[in-house]
C-alpha cells in the first residue's frame, strides 16, 4: 500500500491568513493531483502536477510538486471562508492508473 500522508489533518484559521498543506510519501509518483471535496460530494479537481519542481498557481492557490516527485504542497494566500473544505492529494505511479489518495486536510476558515 502506497501511503500519502497529509498534514495537518485539521486546520482552522482566520479569514485573511495564509496557510500551507503538505502531502508526503516515500514513493515516487508520475503525477499528483489535488482535489477539494465537499461533504457528500465527489472530489473536484483543482490541479495536476507532473514535473518535479513544478509550481502551478490557481488564483490564491499555489501548488508545488517536489523535485523528487514524492511530495507536494498547497499554499493558500489570504484565505476566505469559501476555501473551507476537505483538500485531498492523490498520486499516480508510473505504469499504473489507479490513484492513491492522501488522508486529507480539513480546512476551516473562520470569518
Amino acid at each position, binding site marked *: 500500500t502506497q501511503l500519502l500522508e497529509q498534514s495537518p489533518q485539521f486546520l482552522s484559521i482566520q479569514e485573511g491568513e495564509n496557510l500551507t498543506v503538505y502531502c508526503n510519501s516515500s514513493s515516487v509518483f508520475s503525477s499528483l493531483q489535488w482535489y477539494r471535496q465537499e461533504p457528500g460530494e465527489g472530489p*473536484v479537481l483543482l490541479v*495536476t502536477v507532473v514535473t518535479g519542481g513544478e509550481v502551478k498557481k490557481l488564483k490564491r492557490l499555489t501548488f508545488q510538486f517536489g523535485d523528487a516527485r514524492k511530495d507536494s504542497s498547497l499554499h493558500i494566500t489570504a484565505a476566505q471562508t469559501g476555501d473551507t473544505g476537505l483538500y485531498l492529494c492523490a498520486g*499516480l505511479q508510473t505504469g499504473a492508473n489507479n*490513484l492513491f489518495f492522501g488522508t486529507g486536510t480539513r480546512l476551516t476558515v473562520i470569518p
Partner: protein
Amino acid sequence: EPEVTQTPSHQVTQMGQEVILRCVPISNHLYFYWYRQILGQKVEFLVSFYNNEISEKSEIFDDQFSVERPDGSNFTLKIRSTKLEDSAMYFCASSEEGLGGDTQYFGPGTRLTVL
C-alpha cells in the same frame, strides 16, 4: 463543461441484495474507474476499465463486484450480494488516457446504504 454523472445519488438496500450503480463518463474519455469512500475514511481505488476489460483492480474488488460498459455511454458497478460493510460512497471517474500525467475527473457519487 463536460462532467461525469452518476445515478442514483442514494441507494438503500437490504443485505444480500444485488445493486447496480450507474455512471456516464465524459464522452471522449477512454478510461473509467470506480472508487469508494467509507464514511470518515480515505477514497480507495476499486477498479479501472479500458477497452471493455478490467485493466487493474484492488484487493477490495473481489468476486462480489463486477463492472460493465453495456452500451456506448454507461459504465456500471454491480455488487452481487451486498454486505453491511459495502455501505459507502461510490465514485465513478474517467480520464482521456490512462497515462501518468492524465487527470481523472470524478462524479458526484452514489451513497450506498446496506441495511
